[in-house]
């Protein structure tokens, strides 16, 4: 490739006259790609053989392409780009460097990004720019890296905006703490106002509310004294705009071999929304508890006070019947009997109401009890009824769980009594009590249940009259009855009490049934109770 003899300007005092061959050699050993363009001839007159390392083309390849690489240049408007580049070359001033970045296709087909710096090497007779020397490098990897960094930075910024958080970093020998843009925003400050993004510790502390400051400072001291590598504390700040914010501060501390703190990198997150939400939730919970307590107290007192006059109606009725039987006559005795029966029924209602309200008062303490024992005791209690009805009660192996013993007795008593009550006239009743561990598929959709705990699934099923499936929920409602009193005795509270017992033991109960096809009551109870739940 021809190369004109060019005078090389080397600043004094190291002036050096090099021959064309020497200059070419110099260009060839340069780690950068060197190429020279003749502006007048509008062609490349030299390219160093680094071109083969960078772009894969040999001198022969380039010869075949007409001594030019324009055919492998990638540009949406190639002609305009080439024309503009020549204009730029022609306009280059003495000592000026023009920078270009362009893409070019490697011999292997991949696209490389080339950054090129152009300077005037020689002038023609008219004093116009003649030869332009270009020093180029492959910046493909550097560009990709830079792009990657930009993307990451963008991602971090977006994350900080979305999560209302910011990060900071401190390093040994650095005068301040480096804040991320998000942290400035968190403090109600414009990141642009702090070009070096560095602030002092005192600056940060000036935002902490005075009541929390000592606690935060003491905590930091303890962490450093104990050489803990994690740091977490919650405190309040008042931001630059005067808003009270709740922050969670987390950091990781790195210590050097000498045990001295070397680097701390941390995150501050704004949990004001969560805090507000939580406070509101707590406030409502307190109000709800109070209202429930009032209601329970009311039910308890009302039941008690209602019982008194009722007892008297019954007592006077009985006295009347005993002392004045003769005078009353048959009809009179019948009236008194009806009156006393009505009073007894009301007494039953009140008793059940009392039981119902007592369940939620949680006066009973927890114990590990065998449900099998409980059911056996219930069966003993119901011995007479079971024999009268010629019923069969079959029980599986039942687990031992933590629960309130009297309540568990009441639960099984109500369910089994229920099964013995709603029987088909011509069929011998069969009641089956089964239990097994509940699987996650069964319990995951139940709101009342914590899927991370172990639950037992207990079922009490019968071959009785069943009920219409649409009533499956309603039968648990207080005073809800599906049948007339003359058909089946009852106060309409039995199942409501069951639900209350199951729920107060942190479980869940449901009913399945169809008319004439029996009923099945399924309840889930946890193996262990956690009083704090």
């Amino acid at each position, binding site marked *: 490739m021809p190369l004109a003899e060019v005078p090389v300007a080397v600043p004094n005092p190291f002036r050096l006259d090099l021959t064309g061959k020497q200059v070419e050699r110099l260009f060839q050993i340069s780690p950068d790609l060197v190429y020279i363009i003749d502006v007048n001839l509008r062609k490349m007159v030299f390219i160093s053989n680094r071109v083969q390392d960078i772009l894969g083309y040999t001198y022969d390849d380039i010869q075949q392409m007409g001594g030019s690489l324009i055919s492998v240049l990638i540009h949406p408007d190639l002609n305009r780009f080439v024309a503009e580049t020549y204009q730029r070359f022609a306009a280059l001033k003495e000592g000026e460097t023009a920078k270009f970045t362009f893409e070019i296709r490697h011999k292997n087909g991949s696209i490389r990004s080339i950054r090129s710096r152009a300077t005037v090497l020689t002038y023609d007779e008219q004093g116009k720019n003649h030869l332009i020397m270009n020093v180029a490098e492959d910046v493909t990897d550097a560009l990709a890296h830079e792009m990657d960094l930009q993307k990451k930075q963008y991602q971090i910024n977006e994350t900080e905006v979305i999560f209302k958080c910011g990060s900071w970093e401190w390093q040994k020998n650095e005068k301040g703490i480096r804040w991320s843009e998000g942290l400035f925003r968190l403090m109600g400050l414009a990141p642009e106002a702090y070009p070096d993004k560095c602030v002092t510790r005192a600056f940060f502390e000036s935002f902490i509310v005075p009541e929390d400051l000592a606690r935060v400072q003491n905590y930091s001291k303890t962490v450093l004294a104990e050489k803990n590598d994690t740091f977490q504390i919650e405190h309040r700040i008042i931001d630059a705009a005067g808003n009270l914010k709740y922050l969670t501060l987390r950091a990781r501390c790195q210590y050097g071999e000498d045990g001295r703190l070397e680097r701390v990198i941390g995150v501050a997150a704004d949990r004001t929304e969560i805090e507000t939400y939580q406070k509101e939730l707590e406030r409502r919970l307190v109000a709800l508890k109070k209202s429930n307590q009032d209601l329970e107290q009311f039910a*308890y007192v009302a039941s*008690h006070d209602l*019982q*008194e006059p*009722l*007892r*008297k109606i*019954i*007592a*006077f009725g*009985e*006295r009347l019947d005993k002392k004045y039987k003769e005078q009353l006559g048959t009809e009179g005795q019948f009236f008194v009997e009806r009156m006393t029966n009505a009073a*007894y029924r009301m*007494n039953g209602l009140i008793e059940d109401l*009392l039981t119902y309200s*007592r369940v939620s008062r949680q*006066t*009973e303490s927890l114990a590990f009890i065998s449900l099998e024992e409980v059911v056996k005791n219930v069966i003993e209690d119901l011995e007479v009824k079971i024999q009268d009805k010629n019923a069969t009660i079959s029980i599986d192996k039942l687990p031992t769980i933590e629960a309130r013993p009297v309540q568990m007795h009441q639960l099984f008593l109500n369910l089994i009594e229920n099964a013995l009550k709603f029987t088909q006239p011509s069929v011998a009743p069969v009641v089956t009590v089964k239990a097994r561990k509940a699987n996650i598929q069964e319990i995951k959709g139940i709101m009342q249940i914590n899927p991370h705990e172990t639950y037992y699934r207990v079922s009490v099923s019968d071959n009785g009259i069943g009920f219409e499936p649409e009533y499956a929920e309603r039968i648990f409602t207080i005073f809800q009855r599906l049948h007339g009193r003359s058909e089946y005795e009852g106060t309409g509270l039995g199942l409501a009490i069951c639900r209350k017992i199951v729920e107060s033991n942190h479980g869940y109960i449901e009913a399945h049934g169809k008319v004439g096809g029996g009923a099945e009551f399924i309840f889930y109870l946890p193996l262990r109770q956690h009083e704090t739940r």
Partner: protein
Amino acid sequence: MDTTEIREARKSVMILIADDDEDDRMFTKEAFEENYLLNEIRFVSDGVELLDYLKRRNKYINPDDSPRPGIILLDLNMPKMDGREALKAIKSDPDLRAIPVVVLTTSKAEQDVLQTYDLGVNCFITKPVSFAEFIEVARTVGHYWFDIVQLPNSLD
């Protein structure tokens, strides 16, 4: 002891009933009478009156009007001073705590049972709803406290 002596011994135990409800007083009296328990029965209508009686204060200042009872039947829910407070006062008074106290109430609540036993009640009885059963309870109470149990001698 012959039968007459036993009768006399039983009769000598005076029953003091603290109940604000007139009907209930009547029922209790009738229930004891049904069982041919011929003990003297006296009534007070609330905790304040009960303590006045026992400590011989105000209208009970004259000892003739306030002989020491052999047993006290106590209702829990009464005006002014309820049964729980009265029980506490009796059981913390060295002169009075020897007198057996039987709580006779409509309450079945576990908390009432626990609390009154805690305060030192001698027994807790829930009034049955049926009067026939109540007569039965009165019979048992009479039998237990007047026939079986050795009561402390009255120091008056």
